């Protein structure tokens, strides 16, 4: 058929559909909602997964993180000695530094239980004693001033860098740079602040503080003023904890080496620790797992979408079968006047495709509107990938063809004489 003829067939199809406006409208609803829910769910899923992946990436996809973990069986020993001693040691640090292949930089972190004060304001953020490369390796960004320097480290300087939230809380009205805050019983000069990161699930606010945030001081200074022992007040009793290092972040030279480095770290720790008082966190593995989760999510979503579109398609087919029966006489007339079977097939196929693509297009618009509404009202992040509407359009056209074929075939195979006699 020539393009002019096809255009006429489409116009004719539309005018036939307009003869029954309400029926046509109701028929398209299945595809309409199917398509819009596919796009909306994809956008919401994509947004959630992007957020999760971003959080993981903040941990550093090229990092292997060794962490101290209080072992579960430590309860007994702590009852006896009231001092629980566990976790990563300086020996571990040396081994990571000295013997690990592919490790580029190693950042030790100690976490101190200290109050931070300025004038009458008090906070209990995480006080981290660490080295200058922390900023780079963890991908944090300086907001104001400067970060800890090698010189601070050498001189065990009483300087600190505040997390953005801490800075805002202690210095709501002015810049904290150059101010002196009290950490524990000593005064530290604020030299800089850092930008907050997207909050992580593990970043619960420190006890007694509603603010998630941290304060960073030089590692050497931490050792000098706050020793190894830390006092924890838990349900009225005083517990002493002895932890040398809370975290060792090892930055690997290339992403391909992350897995091997993690395996080496696990092996090293298994050999040197009797208790399981450590964990090895590999952000890259988390990332891969998040991607796997997303893949499964997409499969589930795809199945749901497939089913709803199937239902929509069946609805269209149902109506088209009724239409074919209703228009039996018209089919007979057209056949008598010289229409070939394929003319009849095309005519009804065009009508089904017009229905499903019409529903699909409105569904795409609705599907694009829903994520906007979700972002506005539920404050969730959504991402509409350009492939989603294109895919939805293709699917709805495909549904039109697929579910239109049988009714069109039925129409085309009617006996002209019988069809003409039909009332």
């Amino acid at each position, binding site marked *: 058929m020539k393009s002019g003829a096809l255009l*006429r067939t489409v116009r*004719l199809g539309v005018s036939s559909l307009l003869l029954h406006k309400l029926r046509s409208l109701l028929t398209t609803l299945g595809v309409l909602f199917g398509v819009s829910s596919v796009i909306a769910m994809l956008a919401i899923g994509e947004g959630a997964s992007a957020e999760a992946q971003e959080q993981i990436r903040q941990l550093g996809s090229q990092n292997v993180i060794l962490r101290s973990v209080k072992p579960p069986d430590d309860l007994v020993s702590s009852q006896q000695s009231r001092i629980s001693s566990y976790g990563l040691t300086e020996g571990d640090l040396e081994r990571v530094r000295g013997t690990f292949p592919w490790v580029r930089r190693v950042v030790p972190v100690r976490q101190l239980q200290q109050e931070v004060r300025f004038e009458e304001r008090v906070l209990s953020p995480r006080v981290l004693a660490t080295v200058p490369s922390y900023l780079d390796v963890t991908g944090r960004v300086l907001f104001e001033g400067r970060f800890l320097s090698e010189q601070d480290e050498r001189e065990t300087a009483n300087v600190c860098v505040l997390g953005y939230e801490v800075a805002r809380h202690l210095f709501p009205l002015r810049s904290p740079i150059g101010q002196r805050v009290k950490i524990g019983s000593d005064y530290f000069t604020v030299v800089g602040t850092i930008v907050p990161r997207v909050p992580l699930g593990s970043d619960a606010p420190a006890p007694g503080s509603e603010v998630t945030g941290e304060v960073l001081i030089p590692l050497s200074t931490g050792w000098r003023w706050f020793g190894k022992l830390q006092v924890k007040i838990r349900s009225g009793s005083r517990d002493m904890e002895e932890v040398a290092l809370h975290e060792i972040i090892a930055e690997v030279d290339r992403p391909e080496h992350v897995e091997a480095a993690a395996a080496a770290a696990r092996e090293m720790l298994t050999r040197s620790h009797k208790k399981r008082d450590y964990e090895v966190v590999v952000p890259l593995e988390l990332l891969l797992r998040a991607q796997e989760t997303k893949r499964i999510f997409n499969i589930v979503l795809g199945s749901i979408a497939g089913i709803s579109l199937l239902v929509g398609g069946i609805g269209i087919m149902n109506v088209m079968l009724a239409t074919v029966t209703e228009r039996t006489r*018209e089919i007979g*007339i*057209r*056949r*008598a*006047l*010289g229409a070939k*079977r394929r003319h009849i097939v095309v005519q009804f196929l065009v009508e089904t495709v017009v229905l499903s693509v019409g529903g699909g297009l409105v569904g795409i618009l609705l599907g694009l509107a829903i994520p906007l509404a979700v972002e506005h009202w539920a404050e969730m992040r959504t991402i509409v990938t350009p492939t989603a509407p294109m895919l939805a359009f293709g699917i709805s056209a495909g549904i039109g063809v697929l579910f239109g074929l049988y009714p069109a075939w039925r129409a085309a195979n009617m006996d002209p004489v019988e069809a003409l006699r039909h009332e």
Partner: protein
Amino acid sequence: MPGGNGAPVAELRDVTRVYHMGAAEVRALDGFSFTFRQGEYWSIMGTSGSGKSTLLNILGCIDRPSSGSYELCGHEIGELADDELSELRCRYLGFIFQSFNLIPQLTVLENIMLPLFYQDEPPAEGRERAETLAARLGLGERLRHRPMELSGGQQQRVAIARSLVNDPAMILADEATGNLDSKTAEEILDLLDELHGEGKTILFVTHEAIVGRRAQRILRLADGRIAGVEEGMKDGR
């Protein structure tokens, strides 16, 4: 046989059409042989159930004989595929039905042009031809109307225009005046006379004697066989 000088348009030889009703067999046409020639105007008459419509359906290539042969304008239709039959209907035949059979969602003009739509190579001047025909049949003002907005007589005129638009070799009419009042029927019959005068070949099925007599010749059917051939009023007037 009267006449017999025009070129054969439709030649039927020993055509039988059998319907099976369970175990019973109905021979709607039974060994029917006849030749319709160029320029003839026949009315086909007979009681109800005598096989008139069956004959017309076979002549119209929308039904096939159970046995026997049918040649339309030199094409033996026995061996033709469905698409080729459609092709023949497009090229050689025009249909006029009792209940007009216009397509409601199309305008008058679109209805008239419908047979051209299905031709492999629609004539470039098809639209002009349709408009000329419509004007001639007094439908010039109605081209954009839908069939439902027209009277019965007007609708049948649209159907006649449609049957003429492809310049067919033979026009087949089944009880074409059956749904019209006598005055309107008269007008339609006058129109057919006029077309016959222009050399069109017309086969007109009817069971009404007054209508049948208007044709050039009358072919009487009974039980699927030829019961007689008579001269109509037209030549004897």
